[in-house]
């Protein structure tokens, strides 16, 4: 039986889909059968990050509406036979999903995959609620800035109140990923550090991804940065993938002085 992991943030543009694409590749590389589902209905994006935009025939809404079967809509990754992708629809009708259909889809996916990664839309409206409703785990992505942390906090509150697990008296397993941290700014006292963010959100950490210019070109190419063995952010994603799967992995040393970061870029 697979588990459903929702990647969410509240605020848009903090790197939710990028993170999801990388972790999907990372866990598939670790030997898990992974499906990445774009739940940002109406605003399809994950396809381009995975470089699979030319292969889309059917989408997740078609599956839920019974217009095609699951295997017709699933797209296998170019490089990894373990990784599949289910694209978002581009209809703007937000009311197209209902909770029963979402549950039905996820129950089906759980039978075929080890890991079901859901890309939630930004915001806290209907689409977001569908994405968190049946989550077993949630990865909250936040950048170290006030608006992102504030929105992350809000989202955490909503998961604790509205998810199916919460309503049954259980708890969704939640972890924080801090994205785009700039060690030199942290050192100077001009950026919130990891501890600040964790203290405020009161959740355990599962990864810190340093700000990395290579991510931009990897997005341009549709090749997740995790496949770039030289990129420090790629290494961060590889470690997070292993942590999600239960392994204890050392954190990257992101200190400016003599750490890994400096050795790579110094």
């Amino acid at each position: 039986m697979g588990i459903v992991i929702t990647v969410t943030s509240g605020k848009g543009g903090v790197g939710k889909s990028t993170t999801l694409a990388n972790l999907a590749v990372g866990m598939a590389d670790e030997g898990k059968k992974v499906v990445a589902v774009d739940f940002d209905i109406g605003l399809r994006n994950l396809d381009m990050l995975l470089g699979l935009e030319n292969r889309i025939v059917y989408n997740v809404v078609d599956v839920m509406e019974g217009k095609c079967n699951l295997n017709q809509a699933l797209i296998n990754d170019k490089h990894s036979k373990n990784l599949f992708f289910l694209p978002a629809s581009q209809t703007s009708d937000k009311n197209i999903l209902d909770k029963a259909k979402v549950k039905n889809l996820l129950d089906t996916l759980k039978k075929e995959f080890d890991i079901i990664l859901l890309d939630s839309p930004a915001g806290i409206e209907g689409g977001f609620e569908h994405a968190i409703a049946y989550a077993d785990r949630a990865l909250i992505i936040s950048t170290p800035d006030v608006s992102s942390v504030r929105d992350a906090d809000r989202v955490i509150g909503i998961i604790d109140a509205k998810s199916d697990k919460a309503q049954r008296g259980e708890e969704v397993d939640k972890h924080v990923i801090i994205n785009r941290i700039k060690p030199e700014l942290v050192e100077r006292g001009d950026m919130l550090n990891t501890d600040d963010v964790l203290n405020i959100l009161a959740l355990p950490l599962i990864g810190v991804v340093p700000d990395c210019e290579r991510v931009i070109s990897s997005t341009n190419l549709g090749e997740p940065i995790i496949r770039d063995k030289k990129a420090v952010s790629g290494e961060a994603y590889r470690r997070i993938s292993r942590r999600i799967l239960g392994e204890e992995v050392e954190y990257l040393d992101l200190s400016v002085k003599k750490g890994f970061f400096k050795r790579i870029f110094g």
Partner: protein
Amino acid sequence: MSFFANLFGKKETSASVARDRLKLVLAHERASNSLPYMEDMKAELMEVIKKYTKVKDIRISSQNNQNIDILEMEIVLK
């Protein structure tokens, strides 16, 4: 930031200001956002109380006292 201010950690950094501002704003927001069922619950409570007496308003506030979450309800009668 001068070398000495840095050395003695006297001067406030922008990150520490951000941290304090966030803590303040979230303390306030959590109190009002953590109970999304509040409005529905209020409406239902109103219905129940109306069966027995005339009620004007219900005020519910939440408090966190160390490890105990408390909901305080004030029923204002007509």
